[in-house]
Every structure is written in C-alpha cells, then in structure tokens.
C-alpha cells in the first residue's frame, strides 16, 4: 500500500469513530490545504454506510452474524441510524420466529420493544424486544442460553418472565418476555403523588423480587426505573422487574483485549451503574452491584434525582465518569432535597404529598443512612442482600432501629421511646415505671434477645446464599480466564469455590475440565484431584463420551494422588451412576487400585455386562478397550489364571494403542508373578517398563487420542508402580497367594 492511501485509511477510520456531525469539521482540520485528500476521504466516508448495507445484505445470504460488538461500537452513529430505519415499521405485522409483531410499544437505548402475539403452544400476547445495536447475535443468544435454566427457575409475582430468545431474519437477537403494561416506577409514583411511605412499600417489593433472583443465582445488572414497571392488579399497584438475563446476554464481550473503550460505551446506564461495574475490568460484578443500583433507585424515588446526574456523567467523559462513580461521595438524600431550587423543591415535595420541610425531616436520619449504606463505594459495606435492605426499610416503617447506622445509645433510646409511645408518653407516671421497671426491662431484654437470635439465623441463611452467588460469579471469572489461557489464575479462583451449581453451564464444566487437565499436566495431583472430582460430581447430565473420559481422567488423577479414601468415594460414585450402563472406560477407571471385597461386589454387575457383550463387539479398536479392563478385573478379583487367559485373546488392532500395550504387559507381569512364573513376569515387566519410561521421560504433554492421552499414560505408570513393588525380580523366591 502506498503512503497516500495509508493516510487516507487512517483518516477515514478516525473520522468514522466520531459522531456524524463532527466529521466534516474533523476533515477540515486534518486535511487543511490538501483538497485532493479531503475529497478522497469524504468519498470513502460517503460510501461507508452503503458498504455496510451491502455487506449486510450479502451477509443475509451466508448468514454471517453481522457486525460484532467492536465494529458496532466503532460505527455506533452510522449504525444506529441505519438500523433504526430497518427496524421500525417494516416489521410490523410480520413474523419473528413464531411471534407476530402487532405494535411498537417502546424504544430504548439498546432495543425496540414490540407487542407481539404467540400462537403456539398457547395463544398469548408477549413483549418482544429486538436488540438494536449490531451485536454478535450468536454470542448474545449463547450467553442467554447459558442463563436459561436459571431464568426458568425464577418464579415471582414481581418478576416478568423471560420466555424465549432467538435471532430475527436480519440476524439481530431478540428476547420474548411476559407482557407488562404500565409506567416505570418513578413515573407511577410521581403521577399518583405517592408519599414516602407508599414509595417505600413499593420499593420493598422490588427488593424482594431481586432477592428471589439472587437466590436463584441471577444478577440483574441493569436495575433502573425503565426496567421496573408498575401494573395494577385488582386496583393494587404491583411493581414488575423486567429484562432479567438480558443485560448479561447483551453486554460487550470483555475478554477482548483493547476494546474496552468501545464496548463500555453502551454497557449499563451510567447513573445506575455501581463503581465496580464502571471499573475498567468490569468483570467482577456480583449481587451487591444490584444492591447499589437498588440504592440509586431508592435515592431517585425519595428525592426525584439520581445521586449523580446522568447528563453530567456522560458529558464528563469515560475516565471522569469512572472516577466519579469510584471516588465521589454522593450528597445525602436530605441534603440533595434542600439544595433544590425553590420551584423544583415545591414540585418534588408535592409529588410526594408533603410540605418541603416535612419531606426533608422524613429523609434526614434513617432514610439517609439506609440509602447511603446501599450506595457504599465498598461493596463489603453495603447491605449484603436485597432482603437486608428491605428489612431495614421495614424496620424504619415499624419505627425500629435500623442497622444502617452504628447504633449509639441515645439513638436506640429514641427508637425505644417511639416504639412504646404509650409507656413513655405517660412520662409523668414515673411511679408506674418504677413499679414495673424491673419486669419491663426484663421483658425488653428477652424480646430483644429473641429478635437478635432470629436475625442471626436469617443472616446465616443469607450468608450461604450470598456465598453461592459469589461462587457463581467466581466460576464465571474462571471461565473467562481459561478463555484467555490464564490457567494459573483460573485454578486459584476455582480453589476458592465452595459450592458448585447443581446444573452448571457447559462453559463452566469445560473450564473446570481445562483447569483440571492443566494441573494434571504439571503433575499437581492434589489440586487436579479436587478439580476433577468436582467435575465428575456435577458431570452427570447424560451419557456421552466426554463424561466417560472425565471419569477416566478423574480416576487416574485420584489414584496418582494416592488418596485411597477419595478414590473409594469416586468408585462409589461411578458404580452409582454406571452400574447399569456398559461403559468400559468408566469401568477401567475403577480398577486402578486393589479392590476390597465390597468394591468387588459393587463392580460385579458392570464386569458381567462387559464380559457378556465382548463377543458381540464390532471388530475394531473398541475390543482392545474391553479386553484390558476385563484382564485387570480378573487380576483384581484374584483370578490370575483368567487374567492371563483374557490377555491371550486375539483381538484386532492389538498393539495399535501404545499405553494399552504397556498396560497389557504390566497386568500380565503381575498375574504371572502371582502364578509363580517369576521369569516370565520379569520379562513382561521389563517390556512394560520400557514403554512407560520412554514416554514419561520428559514433561507430560496432553497426548493424542490415537496414540494415548496423558491420562492413558499416567494410568500405565500407576500400574507400573504397582507391578514394580510387587514383582521382585532380584529375589529367586516368588511369593505365592494374595
């Protein structure tokens, strides 16, 4: 490429990253005095939108997932113009999957929402949201699918269900949700002049909904007024949280290095974003981010403002925005109210059915602290759960002490007075207090102790739930790290995980496997053993080859680690899950160590099935895979003659699988030794040893399925160790018996 066109290209790309109105000015400045260059660049820019359309249309023929997130960010301006036109009217009345679009009911930053009708399996109206930005449809849907199981578990009156996801014909992702009609929560409260107490009661319901989701391991990530709508059910306002699972599915892929600036332009809503979401890494998001966003929502419900002004945040630029969210303390809600201009204050107070001074005094104190605790920059200081936040508000409504402030004596006393107004109002009746003083304080004491006990129990339960949610996010992190090839870090994070989800995503299973394998290749057996054991415990979704291979690797790693107890547990698990199926690989993995009588008994049905099936096997490498386990099985049962007999069966492809050949020699060596044939045993042992040692001289590699994976070779080396300890080739006297 010549320097001229290089210049042209650089200028074009720079111009494209600018908003449309600024481009002309940009070109004027950069091409000053070079009319030819300016004309050339302008021409390319002009062709750009058409080019995109052209490729999109061509893409429809090959169905390439059009434009992924990065390109989309780069072309945000031009892009959204094109797509808006494409999307609005032409699709009305048309079908998207099995849904018929009836009417456009909303449009937001990231998508257009349609009223749509589904006819199968039930006829119902739904909300269908088409994601507007040019995102990589496939990965959006894949990420949604990963969450789908968890989403299906959510069942709460204040949560709108997400039914389905898919791709439109133009290749854009769409989501289908329960149809919720109603204004956003802030709008509803203002229009109906709800007072502070009514607002708090609605808000508590929102907290409970979020709590429910957190218990199912789902983080919303995008809590804001437009995602919480209020509908009337039998005349009662019911808040509904929508868009669960969508923020996660549509957020930019943060694994891609160097693309943050582009991606984070459209992830999240700045005013509602927690400091950790705004953070450059952006990955470390957990349930407490939602608590922060709830805090912002509460702030807005109470004061009509968000803690930081959205417009200011956006205009200050990305770095400044991050700094604000990370470092700047917001004003107390009551302070925010007092700093409003007079007219604004009157309106805000009026919408809350209160006089300005009353509103300020309502907010001052408890509500200030509750909001600030939810908004703490350090998530460790926020409410640990949404329920905790709801409980504290409930305490405020019940005039009980809130936990949001470190309780001081006068504060508690103030509350006590208010709670027991009658007793204290009869202030003059000191005598009464004196008379029953002792009884009363004892009563208070017990009541308080009981409350504390109940609270501690609840807290402990919540701690487990929180730990589970945290573990989920740790697993997600590990998945990302594995994707980046950072196995060491992934292994460290997985070490901290206590609870593995019962129904994990495919991603997390494969991350667990990759990390286990990586640890095994470095012969870090204890850690590898933990990873693999966790893997087979959750890996029970069906019968496929991968699961058999996981069992084999797990058995090998546990045996290599030399932990007889863990290996015994593994064997029980294998028997429990595979006693009926005919799997040679799993069976073989159970024979790595000597068996006790109970274990022999447990494995017998598997052995019998495999033995019965042997003559019917197709004539291929599979026969070898059945011969070896049956040899070793008879050896483990003490039937050495049968072991030798099985080893002598003629099978096709004998010798084609090197670690299998080594196993064959070693099993024979041990059996022959037991039968008193020392010379023969020593010769077989020598052959087996040679094969294993030649392979395992250097560092362990992953291997190949056709010539032996790493675990096949470790299997052989474990047998070699056992055989070496048993067969004493130096002594002339062979031992007899078992």
């Amino acid at each position, binding site marked *: 490429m010549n320097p001229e066109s290089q210049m042209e290209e650089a200028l*074009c790309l720079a111009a494209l990253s600018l908003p449309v109105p600024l481009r002309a000015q940009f070109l004027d400045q950069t091409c000053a005095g070079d009319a030819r260059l300016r004309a050339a660049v302008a021409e390319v820019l002009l*062709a750009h939108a058409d080019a995109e359309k052209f*490729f999109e249309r061509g893409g429809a*023929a*090959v169905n390439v997932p059009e434009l992924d997130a*990065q390109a989309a960010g780069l072309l945000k301006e031009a892009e959204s113009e094109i797509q808006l036109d494409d999307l609005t009217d032409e699709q009305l009345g048309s079908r998207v999957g099995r849904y018929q679009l009836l009417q456009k009911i909303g449009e937001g930053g990231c998508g257009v929402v349609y009223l749509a009708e589904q006819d199968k399996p039930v006829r119902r109206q739904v909300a269908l949201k088409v994601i507007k930005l040019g995102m990589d449809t496939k990965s959006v849907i894949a990420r949604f699918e990963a969450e789908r199981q968890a989403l299906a578990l959510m069942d709460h009156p204040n949560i709108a269900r997400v039914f389905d996801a898919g791709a439109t014909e133009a290749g854009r992702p769409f989501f289908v949700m329960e149809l919720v009609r109603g204004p956003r929560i802030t709008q509803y409260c203002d229009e109906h002049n709800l007072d502070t107490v009514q607002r708090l009661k609605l808000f508590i319901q929102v907290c409970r909904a979020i709590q429910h989701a957190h218990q199912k391991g789902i983080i919303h990530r995008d809590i804001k007024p437009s995602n919480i709508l209020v509908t009337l059910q039998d005349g009662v306002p019911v808040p509904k949280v929508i868009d669960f699972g969508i923020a996660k599915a549509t957020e930019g892929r943060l694994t891609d290095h160097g693309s943050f600036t582009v991606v984070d332009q459209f992830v999240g809503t700045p005013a509602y974003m927690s400091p950790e979401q705004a953070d450059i890494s952006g990955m470390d998001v957990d349930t407490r981010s939602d608590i922060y966003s709830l805090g912002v929502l509460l702030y807005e419900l109470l004061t009509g403002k968000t803690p930081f002004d959205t417009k200011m945040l956006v205009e200050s630029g990305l770095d400044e925005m991050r700094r604000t969210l990370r470092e700047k303390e917001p004003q107390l809600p009551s302070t925010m109210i007092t700093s409003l201009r007079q007219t604004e204050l009157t309106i805000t107070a009026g919408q809350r059915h209160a006089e300005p001074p009353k509103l300020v005094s309502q907010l001052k104190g408890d509500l200030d602290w509750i909001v600030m605790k939810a908004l703490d920059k350090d998530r460790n200081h926020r409410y640990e759960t949404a329920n905790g936040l709801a409980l504290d508000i409930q305490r405020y409504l019940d005039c009980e002490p809130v936990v949001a402030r470190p309780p001081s004596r006068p504060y508690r006393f103030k509350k006590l007075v208010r709670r027991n107004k009658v007793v204290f109002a009869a202030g003059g009746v000191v005598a009464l207090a004196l008379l029953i003083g002792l009884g009363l304080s004892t009563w208070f004491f017990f009541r308080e102790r009981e409350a504390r006990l109940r609270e501690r129990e609840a807290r402990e339960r919540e701690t487990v739930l929180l730990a589970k949610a945290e573990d989920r996010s740790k697993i997600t992190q590990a998945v990302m790290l594995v994707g980046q090839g950072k196995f060491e870090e992934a292994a460290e994070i997985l070490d901290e995980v206590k609870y593995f989800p019962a129904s994990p995503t495919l991603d997390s299973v494969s991350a667990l496997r990759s990390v286990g394998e990586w640890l095994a290749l470095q012969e870090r057996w204890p850690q590898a053993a933990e990873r693999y054991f966790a893997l087979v415990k959750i890996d029970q979704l069906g019968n496929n080859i991968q699961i058999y291979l996981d069992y084999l690797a797990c058995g090998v790693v546990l045996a290599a680690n030399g932990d007889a107890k863990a290996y015994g547990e593994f064997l029980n698990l294998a028997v429990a899950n595979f006693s009926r199926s005919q799997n040679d690989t799993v069976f073989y993995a159970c024979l790595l160590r000597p068996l006790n009588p109970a274990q022999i008994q447990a494995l017998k049905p598997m052995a019998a099935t495999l033995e019965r099936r042997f003559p019917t096997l197709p004539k291929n490498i599979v026969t070898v895979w059945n011969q070896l386990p049956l040899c070793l099985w008879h050896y483990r049962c003490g039937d050495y003659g049968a072991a030798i007999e099985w080893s002598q069966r003629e099978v096709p492809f004998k010798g084609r699988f090197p670690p299998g050949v080594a196993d064959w020699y070693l099993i024979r060596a041990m059996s022959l030794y037991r039968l008193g044939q020392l010379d023969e045993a020593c010769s077989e042992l020598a052959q087996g040893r040679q094969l294993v040692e030649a392979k395992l001289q250097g560092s362990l590699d992953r291997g*190949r*399925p056709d010539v032996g994976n790493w675990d096949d070779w470790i299997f052989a080396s474990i047998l070699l160790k056992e055989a070496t300890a048993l067969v004493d080739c130096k002594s002339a006297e062979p031992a007899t018996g078992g």
Partner: protein
Amino acid sequence: MSDITLVLESVRRGERQATEELFPLVYEELRRLAAMRMAKEVAGHTLQPTALVHEAWMQLVGDGHRTWENRAHFFGAAADAMRRILIDNARRKAALKRGGGQQFRVGLEALELTAATPDEHVLLIDEALNWLATEDPEKARIVSLKFFGGLTNDEVAETMGIGLRTVVRQWVYAKVKLFRWISLQNR
C-alpha cells in the same frame, strides 16, 4: 482418529504446507455437512459458515485437540473451502432464479446493485475479493475469514496472528474498499 489430525500435527511440526494439504479434507467434510443441511431444510435456506466450520472442526478433529496453531491452520483452510461452497451455491441459486441453465455472470451490465439478490451480493463480493487480494492481501484475508469463514474477530486475530483492533479496523475499511470497487465495476 482421522487423517486430518495427522496432517494438522505434521503441519504444526512444520513438515508440510498447511492450506494445500488441508483444503481437500476440509472441503469434503464441509460439503458433506452443507449437503445434509440443505437436504433437511426447505427452500430459502442459508448456510451458516460459523456453524458449519465449527461443526466440521468437531467432526474432523474433535474436542480433544485444541492447540491454537492447529485451529489457525484449520480455520484458514476452512474459510477457503467455505468460500468455494458458498460461491457454488450462490451461482446455482442465481442461475435458477434467472430462469434456466445459463451460468450467472458477475458484472452483468443490466445488474442494478440495489436490486441484486443476496446471492448476487455474495458473488459480487467474491469477485471484488479477488481484486483486493492483489491490492491488499491482508485485508482480503480478513474479509475471507470473516465473511466466508464466519469467524469472529477473535478467531481472525488468532488465525492471522494480528491484533484484534487491527482486525476490526481493517474489516471496516475493507468493506468500503470492496464496495467502491464493485460500484465502479457496475456503474
């Protein structure tokens, strides 16, 4: 264990040339998969390169074998194979649509760009890509991998050993260049 793993292995060890060796193997598998797909679905079908290429990878190489060098070689060959399949397919469909056995020729004077069918778009892009390959081979490669191979930006970056941002920028610019060339040719 299939031949392809052995080829990949020897490619990785530097014993053989990557694409020439791989192409026929990958092409056959992709064609088989595409044919199955087409047989199952009704008219108006599309071939999804991403799905096909990844499926071919699973079929031919399996999951156990995940070294990046191998994937890069494989994807390179797969994008070429996929391009040929898509072009063949588009030619056939375009010819059918234009009523009769005659082959669709890219660059017909009568062809209005805006009126062209998606399949014709593909043919035009293919032709323009041949031009770009002589002009700016790196960009042409990116387009081929992304458009015909259905690879993500990450995979393209990985396959070509270049930065992700470079991929994104080159892809944007390449599209404009191709489009302008096509417009000039069909003016």
